[in-house]
């Protein structure tokens, strides 16, 4: 095959690929730009990005226009003799100074947007988002809804992930408890983490803020339309980093007030009476729920774990040994491993229930139980 024929063949191939991709781009699944912005800042970011794309595009076409002109016209094959010039101070100064000016022109509007993006003062509602391996916890700490707190865990069933049942529309982007905020109000998100670094990321709100254990960071957004916006943890945080999404419902002021009222009643209803004495069956039933939400990701629903990183609980010395040792590790975690200190995350009743469950589930048949009062006594 001649070189020309090769070239034509390659062009045809490239054209074919380009056509196929264009055809597929018509399909909505091929999103090639940001998600629909839901805040003014997100819209500005969208526009700034487009501006940069245009500027870069023009420079790209300019530079490579020149280069491809050379490639076509200045070929040895056409008998050309090379020129000998190898410097030109004027040109070299020009192409140092002009790009500097272009860059400054690009960066100036970004500077202004950045300053307003980072301004988290004057918030109507302040919510603390805590990253855990692997879920989010939300505490409404100021503004309407103050006092509401809940955990937000992936709700996509295991069978869908393992391919045993068809995947739903919001596969991996769905949680049991949505974060709910009112439209048009400035929401300040304080991020922190319990174990490793996570990042709270919702593209449509143009918020991404690392959640650093032991520190508080903040970010703010003011949603200008109602809707459900989905994001994910954006900082590698271990095994289930890909499985701790964020779902934010932006609702009208009325709906928000209704939601707050509903949450308050719900919280009052489920609050455990601290002096209640539980039966073994009550503890086991409650414990299974707690286990599924907090423990099963590592230790597995079967209790077999994923050794050696995540040991089995079924038949383990700790889960079948003395109660205090078992309680201690659940409360305080184990340094140097992924075992977190759940004392800070779970209530006395939840810890009592989950420990009781682990001692009496699968092949474990210790038969004893832990009351919330015992957990309380052990807490330092």
């Amino acid at each position, binding site marked *: 095959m001649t070189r020309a024929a090769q070239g034509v063949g390659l062009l045809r191939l490239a054209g074919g690929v380009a056509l196929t991709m264009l055809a597929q781009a018509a399909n909505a699944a091929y999103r090639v730009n940001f*998600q629909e912005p839901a805040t003014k800042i997100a819209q500005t970011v969208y526009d700034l990005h487009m501006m940069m794309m245009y500027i870069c595009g023009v420079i790209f076409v300019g530079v490579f226009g020149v280069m491809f002109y050379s490639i076509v016209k200045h070929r040895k094959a056409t008998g050309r003799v090379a020129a000998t010039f190898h410097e030109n101070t004027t040109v070299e100064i020009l192409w140092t100074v002009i790009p500097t000016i272009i860059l400054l022109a690009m960066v100036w509007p970004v500077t202004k947007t950045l300053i307003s993006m980072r301004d988290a003062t004057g918030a109507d509602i302040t919510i603390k988002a805590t990253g855990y391996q692997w879920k989010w916890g939300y505490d409404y700490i100021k503004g309407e809804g103050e006092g509401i707190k809940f955990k937000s865990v992936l709700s996509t069933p295991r069978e869908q992930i393992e391919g045993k049942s068809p995947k739903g529309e919001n596969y*991996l982007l769905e949680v049991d408890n949505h974060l709910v905020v009112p439209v048009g109000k400035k929401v300040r998100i304080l991020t922190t983490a319990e*174990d490793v670094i996570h990042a709270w990321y919702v593209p449509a709100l143009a918020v991404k*803020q*690392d959640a650093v254990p032991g520190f508080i960071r903040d970010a703010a957004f003011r949603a200008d339309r109602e809707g459900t916006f989905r994001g*994910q943890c954006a900082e590698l945080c271990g*095994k289930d980093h*890909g499985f701790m999404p964020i779902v934010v419902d932006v609702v009208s002021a009325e709906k928000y007030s209704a939601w707050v009222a509903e949450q308050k009643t719900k919280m009052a209803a489920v609050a455990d009476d601290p002096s209640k004495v539980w039966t073994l069956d009550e503890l086991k039933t409650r414990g299974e729920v707690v286990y599924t939400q907090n423990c099963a990701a590592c230790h597995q629903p079967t209790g077999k774990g994923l050794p050696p990183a995540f040991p089995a609980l079924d038949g383990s010395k700790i889960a079948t040994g003395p109660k205090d040792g078992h309680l201690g590790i659940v409360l305080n975690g184990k340094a140097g491993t992924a075992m977190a200190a759940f004392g800070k995350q779970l209530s006395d009743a939840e810890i009592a229930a989950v420990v009781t469950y682990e001692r009496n589930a699968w092949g474990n048949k210790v038969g004893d139980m832990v009351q919330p009062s015992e957990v309380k006594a052990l807490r330092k």
Partner: protein
Amino acid sequence: MNTATTANGHDVGHDAHEHHPKGVMRWIATTNHKDIGSMYLWFSFAMFLVGGCMALTIRSELFQPGLQIVQPEFFNQLTTLHGLIMVFGAIMPAFVGFANWMLPLQIGASDMAFGRMNNLSFWLLPPAALLLVGSMFVPGGAPAAGWTLYPPLTIQQGMGMDMAIFAIHILGISSIMGSINIITTIFNMRAPGMTLMKMPLFCWTWLVTAFLIIAVMPVFAGVVTMTLTDRHFGTSFFSAAGGGDPVLFQHIFWFFGHPEVYIVIIPGFGVVSQVISTFSRKPLFGYASMVYAVAAIGVLSFTVWAHHMYTTGMPVTAQLYFMYATMFIAVPTGVKIFNWTATMWRGSLSFETPMLFAIGFIFLFTVGGFSGLVLAMVVVDVQMQDTYYVVAHFHYTMVAGALFSAFAGAYYWLPKWTGHMYNEKLGQVHFWLSFVFFNMTFFVQHFLGIAGMPRRIPDYALQFADFNQISTVGAFGFGLSQLLFLYNVITCIKGGPKAPAKPWDGAEGLEWDVPSPAPYHTWEVQPIVK
């Protein structure tokens, strides 16, 4: 400018002097820069295949939503090792291999300054590689915290993490020794008349790179040692509970890490500069400004590290500083692109494989440069940070940048190394397949990132499925295309048309004054450069 001649008319053909141990001892005991250069190149290609297999496993898992092939924990181990192996096992040793082979030839030196240290700096690599790869087989598996090794996740890892830390120590010692050798050779062993500003650009880029390595590898060794003491000896540099700060690690890491990305790419600039000039049959445009640009990039690379950390929660003033500083790196980088274009302008161009890879490099590296500019803008980066956009960006600079320039250099100097011409047609097929499949793999990842797909996840939401599928198919095409290169190199070593001393009519430099293949000992009598 680089019109060097062997003015003393000394006979440069010394084949008779090849007295060295035979068999395996030749390679273990060698102090010859050509032997060591070859070992570096073979080692890096082997690691390139190992790291590539990991990448293909990652891409296979990402072919469709759901978990099919690997579990999340192992997936994280693969992404971590893929990064560490490709950066420290494949790309860096490849360019040290080029430096070993070509620097003495290009400056008219008989060998590297410290032969035994040169030997040791190569032979430290295999144990480091064994530690890295071997960590997959110990309890707890390989480190799974990403190649950036951010704590506190690193504190949770098994002993594989400690193996990686020791591997990094060893690799650091090796690179530092290699750099000392390169700097000493360049400063002390240039042929008479070979002033610094007459050196081929490849020597200049390596000189700057060697200083960067010496400056930052100790920083990296230090920060992983702090991780080690946090893990085992009760310190809490990176734990808030003990008065430390996890983000401190990121500052120290990226103070190493940003110069590191230039360590990876700058020698490639040198290769590309020489290849473009050779196949344009025209001297490099703006030689002096190229040298200044490389030096400026080297210096500026120390001042921009926190642009990798815009979302960690630094003050807005710090974000502004790092954004402006990062923008300024675009200026010298732009100068290089313009100079290459001006070198080609009104030249007499031909398009052998090295030239194709060099043009492919400029074209795609510019794409990576533009996406870098986009990422430098803090507010846009907030959307892109830790998404596939970043993955696409750095693969445009690492693969289409560093790797393509390494291919350009390999094809360019293969005739000198082996004494045979490689198969030109096969080389061009290798280029075009690499070019098409590279873009198929990584261009679509820009779209994934913009739409919000985080990096380092083993499973993803349904709207990301189509582009991931395209990317995986591209990755397999790209991976398989590299076997053509291996085949071409092996057949070129075994035979093929005899290469003249100077196979490229536009080439300049002392390396073309010695016969092909370059004899075991060259420039025992230094040439005089006019």
